[in-house]
């Protein structure tokens, strides 16, 4: 078995130069299944770079040009033209050596063609339109929010809450869980430490949502204490307090309804787990940090939001808490 890397550089628009587009080099049709283009890692050092200058080229034109160049490589592998550096014009520069025959671009990369197109649109419509803002952001970030959301593809906080670049430091994991301090190092609390102590965010928002697969797994677990070969179970057991409270409160409801209840209960458990971190508790007590919960129901597109009332809660005493400023947006 061999590992090989190839570089496929998505077209970039840099303000100074133009469009850069590089394609993979050697391809040995005998050694690879026809689905992919690939080459050995030792050959990666010899890169063939195709430079196309001229901002008037649209993306499909680049594709066409690309295919023509590939044909010409087949016939004359050592083709070399001088690059025009000053004025816009079409240039072709091949840095390197005799190539073996090149296969067609594989269909599997259409998704990445799409990504390239989207990045270019982002670059043109947003990045270059707000260049000064992006340059300021490049010097440093000062988000006011830290958001802990689920990894679910339907609940990106940038989409549903409209966060723009620079506004929210976001952690996404299965079922938007926050483990308590006593669990030791995890990816979530490393991010918490950075957001609270380094970035000094003023708000932490834990966003849950309807039809959460992670919560469903938590509620469906037969025996939460049994060792399991599943990663999912090892992780969602962080939410076991929410599961216990849900079962105690609504055991008469069906599984789906219990899951709805648990999705919200788990958000509150996570908010209380935030207070188990001394540097979070300290800031909350001083009024420098607020903890909020949010629940996105994507069936009817509603958002419920509330704030943990830390004056009224004694989380260290039997997990008591109260909430305030509840709002419902529809």
């Amino acid at each position, binding site marked *: 078995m*061999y*590992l090989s890397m*190839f*570089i*496929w*550089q*998505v077209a*970039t628009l*840099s303000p100074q130069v133009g469009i850069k587009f590089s394609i993979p080099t050697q391809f040995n049709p*005998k*050694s690879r*299944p026809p689905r*992919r283009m690939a080459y050995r890692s030792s050959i990666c050092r010899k890169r063939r770079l195709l430079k196309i200058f001229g901002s008037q080229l649209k993306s499909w034109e680049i594709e066409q040009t690309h295919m023509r160049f590939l044909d010409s490589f087949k016939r004359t592998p050592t083709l070399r033209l001088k690059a025009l550096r000053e004025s816009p014009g079409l240039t072709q520069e091949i840095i390197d050596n005799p190539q073996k025959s090149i296969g067609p671009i594989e269909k*599997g990369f259409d*998704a*990445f063609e799409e990504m390239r197109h*989207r990045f270019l649109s*982002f670059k043109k419509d947003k990045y*270059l339109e707000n260049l000064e803002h992006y*340059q300021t*952001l*490049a010097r440093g*970030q000062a*988000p*006011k929010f830290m958001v802990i959301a689920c990894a*679910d*593809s*339907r609940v*990106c906080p940038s989409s*549903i*809450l*409209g966060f*723009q*670049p*620079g*506004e929210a430091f976001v952690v996404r*994991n*299965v079922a938007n*869980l926050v483990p308590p301090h006593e669990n030791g*190092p995890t*990816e979530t609390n*490393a*991010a918490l430490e*950075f957001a609270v*102590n*380094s970035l000094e965010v003023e708000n932490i*928002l834990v966003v849950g949502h309807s*039809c959460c*697969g*992670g919560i469903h797994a938590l509620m469906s677990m037969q025996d939460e204490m049994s060792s399991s070969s599943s*990663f*999912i179970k*090892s*992780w969602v057991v962080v939410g076991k307090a929410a599961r216990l409270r849900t079962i105690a409160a609504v055991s008469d409801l069906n599984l789906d309804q219990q899951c709805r209840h648990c999705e919200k209960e788990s958000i509150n458990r996570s908010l209380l787990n935030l207070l188990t971190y001394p540097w979070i508790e300290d800031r909350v007590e001083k009024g420098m940090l607020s903890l*909020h919960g949010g629940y996105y129901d*994507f069936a009817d*597109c509603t958002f419920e*939001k509330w704030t943990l009332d830390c004056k009224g809660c004694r989380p260290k005493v039997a997990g008591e808490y109260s909430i305030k*400023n509840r709002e419902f*947006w529809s």
Partner: protein
Amino acid sequence: MANDSYEEAIAALQQLLSEKAELGPVAAAKIDRITGELQSIAERKNFDPVERLKNGFIHFKREKFEKNPNLFNKLTKGQSPKFMVFACSDSRVCPSHMLDLQPGEAFMVRNIANMVPAYDKIRYSGAGAAIEYAVLHLKVQEIVVIGHSCCGGIKGLMSTPDDGTTASEFIEDWVKICLAAKTKVKAESGDSKFGDQCTKCEKAAVNVSLGNLLTYPFVREGLVKNTLALKGGYYDFVKGSFELWSLDVGLSPSLYVSSENLYFSESA
């Protein structure tokens, strides 16, 4: 010299400057800095987080949800994203912006420095849970790990002293997942400027994460069966560029050896 009132403080400053005029420029610079700090405090006080969230949600509902009923109706029944994305928690690099990912397209994990830890059910159950869910339940086709420029996590990794002392409770413990990237960069580019080393490490760490993905048996199985592919990416928001590359895994033709002849395949 403690003065409680603003007027007394200003009067004392004016008195000092009238006696020592050469301190004028120094005082001006310090006053500018204080003014800037007070302005940002004022801005912070004017900022209403709830109002910001509400406006964001209402905008999403009007501009996206109500204008795409078919898509969102389908999403209520379930998700079937083609991509799983690992991205940094950095507020400047949400892939939904730069790659215009729509709801339902990408199962996304965001953590410090977009790292994928190696298989460990005790220490790293969070990452493992996400990968397991994405590969086995959602059956994603591509896993993409996207790094970025000016990454605070990578900078922290590169700044951690080699003797193992740590300044943080959790951050350094997390970023040492990609210690191999730091070692590689230091060995190859130890003489470069720190900023350049960090840039190299940001990309090398993506490759370490791609390698760590191979420690998950369900990922390996997906790769061998060709139902899953791994990609690395790098978003440079200073230059405004995006790089994308693939980790290719395959089987070379077998080597046939007999007593009469030795046959080597061209790929050996």
